[in-house]
């Protein structure tokens, strides 16, 4: 038995088996339970340590597996990360039935997640770019249902994500050259430039994020939300892998400034665009861009806060996106559109579902007592030390997003005088969103609840964790 087989091989097999159930609720339940089981096993089962089953029998889970001369290895240090990714995926899979896309999201999502984990575990890690591209290709049927003509968003997504791979592969080859001659400044600059270009495509950094709002408008918000949670998370972890491996890149003098610049551009521009939006899906898309911007800003503080600021953002952002996209999916399924005109006064028909949209939106801004508040506060504390300009740009993005939240609030409460309160949406939908709202509030009031998960996460990157 070995770790890659358990946390990559089994999920890949599950991704095929989960097509079999004919009922969506069964698919969602089985997918959620499987992901939860994989998360729990990653948390509790030791890797590379003998487990005594009986006096005569003991079991040891090996770290790596060889495939065609290359190695895929999952070390004990990776366990918290696996538990986090599969745990968060379980939340998404459980909600998929309520969002009406369990039949596609659960099997495809399981396959995509397994491939992303493989991309983080493969050695030489250069092969990761190829595995990520394979996962991107599998994501296309998730984002574009077979019964609907593909829109501009999915085409742009495919183009931008595919263009990332050659840049990263080539940068990887140059990086090997830099390792052998670290004094070659020209080679170093070329490698850094290609790497930056590759990650700009992969992370949808300004101005390459145009596909996000378009896709939010044309595809299922829940499917896009899943990709907007998983893809940037894995791409950032992949980027951390580069930083962890190459000392020169870690100590590159311009790195914090470049990360800060990219992060501020994303937070500032997406926040401002969101303020002028009239479509709830597109607003969520811009909020997801702001999320990635915050993560980049957290990475720019690497030398001050190691990785704590970065990992602190992961759970609230993922949870917020799950609740937000689930609420939007339900509204879209029932009302057909997420335009302001269509959802005007809807809080009286969908009190819990609309509350889900608003709570997730305010959490993304970092409103006190919500899950997003502690990490965003910590981030602003770090940014303020960098200078007033930096903090002001980030604040501009927050103000833009806050404006869009108030506009949404104003629109959803604009009901006719004689309208009565109802509770539309199924019990399952309302209960799931209700649980999500409670979780966001709980994490806001008691942020230390996720401390046991976060405390060991930086250990995955031994040179960065300080």
């Amino acid at each position, binding site marked *: 038995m070995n770790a890659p087989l358990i946390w990559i091989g089994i999920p890949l097999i599950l991704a095929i088996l989960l097509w079999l159930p004919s009922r969506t609720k069964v698919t969602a339940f089985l997918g959620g339970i499987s992901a939860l089981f994989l998360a729990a096993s990653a948390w509790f089962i030791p890797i590379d340590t003998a487990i005594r089953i009986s006096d005569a029998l003991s079991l040891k889970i090996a770290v790596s597996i060889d495939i*065609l001369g290359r190695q895929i290895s999952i070390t004990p240090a990776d366990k918290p990360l696996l538990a986090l990714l599969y745990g968060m995926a379980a939340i998404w899979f459980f909600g998929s039935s309520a969002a009406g896309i369990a039949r596609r999201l659960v099997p495809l999502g399981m396959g995509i997640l397994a491939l992303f984990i493989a991309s983080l575990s493969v050695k030489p890690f250069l092969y990761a770019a190829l595995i990520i591209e*394979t996962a991107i290709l599998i994501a296309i049927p998730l984002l574009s249902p077979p*019964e609907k003509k*593909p829109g*501009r968003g999915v*085409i742009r997504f495919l*183009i931008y994500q595919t263009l990332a791979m050659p840049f990263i592969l080539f940068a990887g080859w140059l990086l090997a050259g830099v390792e052998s001659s670290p004094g070659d400044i020209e080679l170093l600059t070329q490698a850094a430039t290609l790497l930056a270009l590759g990650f700009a495509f992969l992370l949808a950094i300004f101005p390459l994020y145009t596909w996000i709002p378009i896709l939010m408008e044309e595809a299922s918000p829940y499917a896009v939300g899943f990709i907007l949670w998983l893809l940037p998370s894995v791409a950032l972890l992949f980027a951390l892998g580069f930083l962890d491996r190459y000392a020169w890149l870690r100590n590159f003098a311009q790195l914090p400034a470049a990360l800060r610049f990219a992060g501020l551009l994303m937070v500032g521009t997406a926040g401002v665009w969101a303020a002028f939006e009239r479509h709830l899906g597109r607003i969520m898309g811009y909020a997801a861009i702001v999320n990635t911007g915050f993560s980049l800003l957290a990475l720019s503080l690497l030398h001050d806060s190691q990785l704590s600021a970065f990992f602190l953002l992961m759970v609230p952002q993922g949870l917020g996106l799950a609740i937000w996209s689930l609420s939007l999916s339900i509204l879209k399924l029932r009302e057909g559109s997420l335009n302001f005109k269509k959802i005007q006064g809807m809080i009286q028909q969908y009190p819990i579902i609309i509350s889900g949209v608003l709570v997730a939106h305010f959490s993304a801004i970092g409103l006190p007592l919500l899950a997003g508040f502690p990490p965003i506060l910590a981030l602003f504390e770090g940014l303020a030390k960098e200078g007033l300009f930096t903090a002001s740009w980030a604040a501009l993005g927050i103000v833009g997003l806050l404006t869009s939240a108030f506009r949404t609030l104003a629109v959803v409460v604009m009901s006719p005088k004689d309208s009565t309160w109802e509770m539309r949406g199924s019990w399952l939908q309302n209960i799931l969103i209700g649980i999500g709202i409670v979780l966001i509030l709980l994490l806001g009031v008691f942020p230390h609840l996720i401390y046991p998960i976060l405390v060991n996460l930086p250990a995955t990157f031994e040179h960065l964790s300080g």
Partner: protein
Amino acid sequence: MQIISWIAVFLIFVSTLSLLITWDWRWSLVHLALLYLGVFWLTQIHWTISMAAIKLVTGWMVATILGITRAALDPEPASALEHSWSHGRLFRILAAALAFLLVISVTPTIVKLLPGIGIPEVAGSLILMVMSLLLLGLTTEPLQAVIGLLTFLAGFEIIYAAVENATLVAALLATINLGLALVGAYLLTAGTDEERGATE
């Protein structure tokens, strides 16, 4: 050998230019299949013939997958654009000329950066990448977008073959090419039932 390499570069240039100005999907796929001949020749300079043949076979398989899928769909009525030579095509030819000038000016610099690689490989690779970016920038059609991406990857694979000759990389790149073709086929067929229903 050098002369054949330059013929391959010329073939690549003609194929990519034709891809840019052809509206008919049949001709697009023929040009795509032709450009893989050039890719094969420029790749075999650094790889063994059998390894380089992977590119050719994969490329032709890709063109076949896309062709079979497209042929199964209802034929689209020829638009007015297809009959008007001046509309769009002139712009595309001018843009391609500019792109070609860019390739000529950049090629010597890239050759200096990558030791052991010849001018034809770099020129062929850059022509493929620049022209495909042009194609990608001018289309929102799934078939054209996938052809553009395949062309871009083909260009990248020529240069990458000069620096990396691992079998696993070749296999994974071939898988990605085939995957792109399957995605293209999926996107082509997606929504066709809805369209048929609307017309009936």
